[in-house]
């Protein structure tokens, strides 16, 4: 990978990016993009607590920046339709405090019905929406001004709480030079720096989003054009003011909520034992590739819970020696297990 950047952790002095960091970023970067259709599950075990999951996720994010299909534009009109359907047929009729797990309504989170037009004006899904004919209708507040977006103009609309699908100008574009230096010569499509993507997910620590961010926040990179904190590079919504678009869907393992309305991600990187167990259990991730990062300075019971869960998959999965062989040698202290589902 031969990154040209410098690295600092926990406010210590700048140094070349250490081998363990390079290895983890490379693991995410080299992760197959799912074209084979074979689901993979990996467990990365670390000798200490670290930002391992976030670094793997960063590698996968850089990989996706070079993928012309890695954006939320193509399926955006369908996303709006799904959101409208959930709101009209379920959430607007529900008088319970929102708890999809208890209600067993089949949704992961509440659809409030609110959408934004060109990042600013608030509208709500209108009852004039025709789900059968795939025609959307949004109404603006008390004015009753109703708009009927067409598929080709759908990217002007975003679900409230979701990141914008695409920026209309260069302000807020992601820093190409940072990603391009972290993985040297990584192909990056300029257009992707302006677009959000929800196919990659970081499942945070079960302690919550703040705890996950704190761990990430201790890691910084410095390149020719400036310094970049890991939370900023990950583009998780609300983690950095500078991020207008978000290329990382965040799953809060404590509340079991996503930070956006999105369909199942292609790859989930789970941080910590409890988060991995949840990721492997929840139906939202049943088709996703999963990379779990865990440290070994835990009680035996916790280690066994993870080990039993992952090794229990061996009846359907085989070790992916090919993938392991393509990776550089793991630094001393890191163990990696990659399982791939047998061809069906």
């Amino acid at each position, binding site marked *: 990978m031969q990154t040209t950047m410098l*690295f600092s*952790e*926990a406010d*210590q002095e700048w*140094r070349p990016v*250490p*081998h*363990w*960091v390079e290895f983890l970023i490379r693991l995410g970067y080299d992760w197959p993009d799912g074209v084979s259709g074979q689901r993979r599950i990996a*467990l*990365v*075990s*670390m*000798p*200490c*607590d*670290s*930002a*391992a999951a976030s670094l793997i996720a960063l590698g996968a994010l850089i990989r996706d920046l070079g993928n012309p299909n890695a954006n939320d534009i193509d399926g955006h009109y369908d996303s709006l339709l799904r959101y409208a359907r959930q709101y009209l047929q379920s959430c607007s009729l529900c008088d319970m405090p929102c708890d999809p797990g208890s209600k067993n309504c089949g949704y992961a989170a509440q659809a409030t019905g609110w959408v934004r037009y060109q990042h600013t004006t608030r509208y709500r899904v209108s009852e004039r929406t025709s789900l059968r004919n795939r025609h959307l209708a949004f109404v603006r507040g008390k004015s009753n001004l109703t708009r009927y977006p067409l598929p080709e103009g759908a990217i002007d609309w975003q679900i409230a709480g979701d990141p914008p699908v695409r920026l209309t100008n260069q302000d807020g574009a992601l820093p190409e030079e940072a990603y391009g230096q972290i993985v040297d010569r990584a192909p990056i499509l300029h257009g992707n720096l302006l677009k959000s993507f929800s196919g990659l997910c970081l499942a945070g620590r*079960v302690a919550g989003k703040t705890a996950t961010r704190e*761990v990430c926040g*201790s890691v910084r990179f410095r390149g020719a054009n400036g310094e970049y904190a890991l939370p900023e590079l990950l583009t998780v919504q609300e983690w950095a003011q500078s991020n207008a678009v978000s290329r990382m869907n965040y799953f809060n393992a*404590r*509340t079991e909520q996503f930070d956006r309305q999105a369909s199942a991600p292609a790859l989930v990187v789970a941080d910590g034992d*409890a988060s991995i167990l949840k990721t492997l259990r929840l139906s939202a991730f049943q088709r996703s590739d999963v990379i779990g990062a*865990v*440290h*070994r*300075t*835990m*009680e*035996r*019971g*916790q*280690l*066994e*819970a*993870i*080990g039993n869960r*992952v*090794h229990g998959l061996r009846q359907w999965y085989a*070790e992916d020696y090919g993938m392991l062989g393509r990776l550089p*040698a*793991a*630094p*001393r*202290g*890191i*163990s*990696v*297990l990659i399982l791939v589902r047998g061809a069906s």
Partner: protein
Amino acid sequence: MAIAASRIFDFLERQEAGTVERHEISLAAFGALRRSLRQIVLRLRDSDDQDALSLSGQLRALLSEWLTIPVAFECSMLDAVSGFFRRSEAGGTRWGSDIQALYDEAIRATENLRSVENPVRDEIRLVIWELRAQAQTFKVYCHRRARPHFETIFIVPGELPLSEDTFLHSVQDYRNTEPFDTLIKVGPLRARGWGSAPDALLTAPRFRTLVQVVWSGCSDEPGFGYDPALPPTDNTATDGATPPVAVSIGRRPVQWKTLVTRSGEDPGAAAGYTPEEDELRAFREMDQSRDERRATLFEIAGKHGILYPPHSEVLSFDPASSACEPIDYRRPGESLHEGLYIILPRLGEVDLGGVRAEHGHYSRIWKARLEQQWRTDASGLIKRLQAAGLNLVYLGAAIKHWCEPPSTVIHAPQTMKHFEILVRVLGVGSDAEVPQHLRWGSWSQFAWVEIARSRGEAIQTGFEEQGIVDEQSLLSLRRLIAIIRAEALAKADFLLPIPDGNGIRGEFAFFKVYRVEEGFRAPEAELKVVRELSVIDKWRD
């Protein structure tokens, strides 16, 4: 994340191979004591007699402690053995001549050990002297209660005491420690139970050398050094005599080089001396054939604790202001941890006379009499209790403990049989004092219900479904959150009466969790109730 990960990786990269220096100690007299006690434990364990089972458990705990902690031979260890045998003079006739012969052998061995310094302590002293001479940084991994036994090795004139930061007591302590030169560990490497240590000692070393001081015959647990990302191995194939010498980590494993040094009597040379067996392993195998469940200990104040089986839903309170839902059901090992409060609802319809108005109504009466008799004639009281059949190992210490005034928990004997003996010997509580409408039970029965209730063994009659009770408890507690927060600021443990109009009657007892420890197997009746730590030790794996 206390230690920067790069610091750990830099340390591991510099280290081609770690070293396990295993010092195996033999001593004929201690071997004889081990052998006789082991056989007593195993034979009494097969008995149907509750006293025999209880004695077996106590002896097992004692022996396990001695094998994993550097106790001084001349102190309480020998008092405990000889005291136990003194009170068991009738043992030969009660449990057979074979047990009597084993008693006699143990007594002889105990007397032989009186004049001997524990060689494990000698070895630790020598190791630490050498490390200090070489200016090496070192730490000791041990249970919190083992710590004084290490400290006393160096409490002599001219010795530098062991400092506070020398000790590591938990995986959290280990996780937060900077790399150092040498780790000292007494006893075999086991993931659970007596002398347990984190697997990370081998899979995520923070040190270059592990000095392990063990009694001969005590083998490391097969599979110690577990890494969930490595393929499962067949643990039965290993002999368990040494730690796994090469723990495979990724494709550049940390190598462990094991050097074994044996000292003491050569098992082949001493007459009548046979090599020791592995008691810790034998006891574990014995457990596996019994109907016991794995459990986690939650240590609370006053040397008490509560065992919970895996996947329990424990009603608890999180005092942190950031807690999303302060009162909730939480799981051991997941969200129930140190600093939180366990809540035991003491609900029910059992009318205990005065107790509804006053927690500890009966206990105040018998404790006052106990305290008075202990003050005036302690040795006479001990003799009378022993003669009546109350044969605990540390009876004097137990009586002092029972004298303590009732708090959130009522300190009292652990079994009803022992409690009835105590009440009878004290001559307290006439049945005539029981209110007329409660004449269905004796005074001692009501006093015992009061004790059991304080331990969480509440009799929840009058409710058809436990689920209704749970739900109602949760709702009631959430309404009381402001009061609970105020109480928790002031006290570690407290009782909170349930106000009228909540659909349930009784009170909630709050216990702050000080420590969480895995590695117990206990019968159903010992789970989810408050017990003294000395009693819980019996269930250590």
